[in-house]
């Protein structure tokens, strides 16, 4: 390397070209890795859609591919929320569905006949590969390609993201994380280049994000925060203006195009921050401009004049804004966003949000589970971002800090933290490797000037993957420094750079590299374990290992198949809202409530029915035209997330709307129990009866394996319901409402006199009753 300048140029440009090809190759491999690590669920189970929400998305995609885009926008779904129905086109984030629909359409027009389900199953892995590439681009803008490659490799297998994007997990987050990272990348790119072209792309990427996920509010608050930070710390530049101002205008308009967002894009407080910062930015831009054309003295005069006049106007505007916002009851914020700002909000006011487990705050182990060693690398990454602090790196730091806060509020938002943690760790790892390999390199140069490069090459060959990924920045950095110095003087180069660079003894750096590789290996092992064991269960097919081998519980599909084959097409099936999407998608039957949870009263009605005694429940269900009631029961096989465990939430949600349901009635001394100590209200409520009907016949004692007790009331008969189907492992039990006339005959007079004193709701339902 220590040659004259014109011989340096050719090898270095050759090397750069080689480096580019090499990093392209690594990127492709990272994409393959991101895709294939998510296929455990397909290999271990089968190619099915997972869980709850994905079934809804799948159903919507099916509709889209069958009926086309216009019918999709106008789709009124009468299969759900009976009797209300739901306007799907206007209430759904269409990004995921449109993406998968387009993919399917493209594949089909290329004569690749894949089913819609297959396309849906593999959408998430595909997009996680894209997300890894987007991470590369983003980190490359921040800290160079080496950090980019490392971050991309980390993101490709971060468990938190895997948990949401395994094959079959066909949910909004699958494409949204890609959109999130890509939007951030384009913002940084615009910020670095100041090109309007990238600003336009940025707005379009933001549009895709708005289409895909409600989490877009994170972007529209984070980017203003960063702009404000830049202004406050005196880093305002015209590039910032170009990056921010068009994004707000275009982004707002584009967001308003998405039906589910609509006018919310300008009406709710989530978006106000962006407008406020937009105004501030314009003012600041004007101030900088005037400062540029005026002499400093005149500028001072102008400032004193403007400030005295401007303060009054500002106060007036702020007062009007505050009055406007305060006049709305929730201060213009939606429930979910409020529970982000005030973590106790949801549990206080909205049981329906609090009841979802992924809306709970996470525990410490879940951080270790979900981001693993990255949690320890992140602080190092922050330090690396401060040397030197650029606009881009300050953005990444801000992103990390805010996402750490949000992940602390809701488990689900750990997903937003994961890319930030990957980027930070990528930067940290890459700069650490940079320092170590550089010191090895210079140490070997010090010994033998010509063999510097080969010595470095040898150490690099030992290092498998993470070291390869850090190759470009180190090369670049060292090359740059070398070039600079070569122009000045040649011979004392080693000594001087040794003093200048942060040098470590060669042995220490070799050990450190080995340790870092060990850390990386640990991370990889953990990720593969998490992908294979923890996050790949589809939750509609369950397996358990016991001493006599593998058991497969396919009860859900068994029950839904029974429903679709044995019931009438227009029959209504009532169940707790968790199973609404699956019932409509797999059994194609109308449900009363589903996972969309937009109508709290309706859910509360079902919750009330489940927590009422049999007769009252029958009346509620009959008023809703329900034919079948479906309950999920895990007591026989020990499936913990069954309806009995969710029952307290039904009571809470039901009690929130219908005050005659009181939670303490179901608790004995504040404890939730179903054994002989349980309260009579509990033992007589519909949920208990439907779950444990005939349960004692299985083992003679009625031992519940989830609660690990014997049940309280073992022998009882159902008066208003008929058991029609129970699956193989008793996990799903389906009951039919008994027809009314058998029950009411002979009691007509009595019930008539009763109905006067009964509640108005009940009498209303009686009137509707045709047999009465």
């Amino acid at each position, binding site marked *: 390397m220590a040659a004259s300048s014109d011989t340096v140029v050719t090898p270095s440009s050759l090397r750069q070209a080689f480096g580019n090809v090499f990093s392209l190759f690594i990127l492709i491999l990272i994409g393959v890795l991101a895709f294939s690590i998510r296929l455990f669920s397909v290999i271990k189970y089968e190619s099915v859609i997972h869980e709850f929400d994905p079934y809804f998305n799948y159903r919507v995609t099916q509709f889209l591919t069958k009926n086309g885009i216009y019918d999709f926008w106008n789709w009124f779904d009468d299969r759900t929320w009976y009797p209300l129905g739901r306007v799907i086109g206007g209430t759904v984030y269409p990004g995921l569905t449109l993406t998968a629909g387009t993919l399917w359409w493209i594949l089909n027009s290329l004569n690749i006949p894949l089913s819609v389900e297959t396309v849906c199953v593999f959408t998430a892995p595909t997009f996680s590969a894209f997300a890894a590439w987007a991470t590369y681009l983003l980190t490359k803008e921040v800290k160079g390609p080496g950090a980019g490659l490392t971050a991309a490799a980390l993101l490709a297998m971060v468990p938190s993201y895997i948990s949401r994007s395994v094959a079959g997990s066909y949910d909004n987050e699958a494409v949204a994380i890609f959109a999130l990272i890509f939007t951030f990348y384009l913002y940084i790119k615009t910020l670095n280049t*100041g*090109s*309007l*072209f990238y*600003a*336009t792309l940025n*707005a*379009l990427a933001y549009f895709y994000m708005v289409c895909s996920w409600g989490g877009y509010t994170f972007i529209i608050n984070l980017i203003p925060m960063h702009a404000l930070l830049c202004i406050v710390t005196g880093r305002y*530049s*015209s*590039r910032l*203006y*170009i990056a921010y*101002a*068009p994004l707000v*205008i*275009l982004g*707002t*308009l*584009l967001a*308003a*195009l998405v039906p589910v967002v609509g*006018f919310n894009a*300008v009406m709710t407080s989530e978006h106000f921050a962006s407008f406020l910062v937009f105004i501030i930015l314009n003012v600041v*831009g004007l101030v900088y401009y*005037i400062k*540029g*054309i*005026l*002499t400093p003295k*005149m500028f001072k*005069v*102008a400032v*004193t*004049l403007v400030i005295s006049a401007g303060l009054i106007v500002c106060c007036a505007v702020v007062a009007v804004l505050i009055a406007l916002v305060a006049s709305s009851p929730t201060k213009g914020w939606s429930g979910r966003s409020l529970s982000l700002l005030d973590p106790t909000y949801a549990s206080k006011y909205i049981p329906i949000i609090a009841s979802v487990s992924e809306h709970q705050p996470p525990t410490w182990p879940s951080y270790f589970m979900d981001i693993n060693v990255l949690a320890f690398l992140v602080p190092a990454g922050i330090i690396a971002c401060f040397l030197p602090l650029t606009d881009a790196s300050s953005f990444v730091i801000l992103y990390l800090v805010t996402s750490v806060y949000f992940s602390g509020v809701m488990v689900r938002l750990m997903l937003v933290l994961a890319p930030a943690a990957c980027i930070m760790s990528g930067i940290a790892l890459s700069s650490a490797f940079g320092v170590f390999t550089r010191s090895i390199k210079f140490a070997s140069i010090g010994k033998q000037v010509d063999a510097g490069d080969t010595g470095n090459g040898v150490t690099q060959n030992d290092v498998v993957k993470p070291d390869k990924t850090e190759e470009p920045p180190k090369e670049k950095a060292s090359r740059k420094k070398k070039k600079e110095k070569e122009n000045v003087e040649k011979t004392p180069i080693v000594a001087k750079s040794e003093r200048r660079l942060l040098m470590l003894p060669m042995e220490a750096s070799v050990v450190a590299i080995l340790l870092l590789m060990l850390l990386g290996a640990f991370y990889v092992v953990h990720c593969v374990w998490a992908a294979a064991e923890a996050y790949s269960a589809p939750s509609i097919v369950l397996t358990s290992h016991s001493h006599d081998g593998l058991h497969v519980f396919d009860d859900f599909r068994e029950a839904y198949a029974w429903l679709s084959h044995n019931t009438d097409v227009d029959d209504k099936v009532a169940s707790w809202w968790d199973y609404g999407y699956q019932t409509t998608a797999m059994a194609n039957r109308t449900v009363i409530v589903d996972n969309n949870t937009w109508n709290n009263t309706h859910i509360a009605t079902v919750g009330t029915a489940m927590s009422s005694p049999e007769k009252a429940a029958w009346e509620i269900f009959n008023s809703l035209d329900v034919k079948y009631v479906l309950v999920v029961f895990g007591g026989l096989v020990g499936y913990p997330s069954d309806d009995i465990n969710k029952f307290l939430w039904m009571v809470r949600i039901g009690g929130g709307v219908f005050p005659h349901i009181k939670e303490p009635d179901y608790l004995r001394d504040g404890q939730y129990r179903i054994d002989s100590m349980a309260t009579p209200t509990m033992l007589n409520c519909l949920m208990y009866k439907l779950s444990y009907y005939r349960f004692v016949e299985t083992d003679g004692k009625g031992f519940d394996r989830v609660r690990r007790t014997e049940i309280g009331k073992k022998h009882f008969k159902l008066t208003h319901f008929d058991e029609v189907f129970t699956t193989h492992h008793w996990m799903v039990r389906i009951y039919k409402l008994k027809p009314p006339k058998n029950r009411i005959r002979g009691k007509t007079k009595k019930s008539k006199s009763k109905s006067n004193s009964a509640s108005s709701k009940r009498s209303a339902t009686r009137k509707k009753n045709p047999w009465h």
Partner: protein
Amino acid sequence: MAKSSATKDAQALLHSLRSAYASTPTNLKIIDIYVLFAIFTAVIQVGYMAIVGSFPFNSFLSGVLSCVGTAVLAVCLRIQVNKENKEFKDLPPERAYADFVLCNLVLHLVIMNFLG
């Protein structure tokens, strides 16, 4: 006394502003007029909304945002083609103009969609 000094200051400020602005190239002045016109249109629309009401809200929104967006994009163009701005030395004005046109196209396509 204080008042008169303030007015004097203001006069001096206006004078120096005018003299400083006089030296701007003509193409930038044209852009400035364009920006002012867009802002003026937006203000008229907001005033109209205040008097008549915002009933077809999407029309109002797209009208105002069209004006504001045009102004913002023009300001961006002005920043980019300004010769005194050191940050964009290697950006040719043709490229800046092409970006501007593209961005405007997207903006107004969206607005046409949103008008309803």
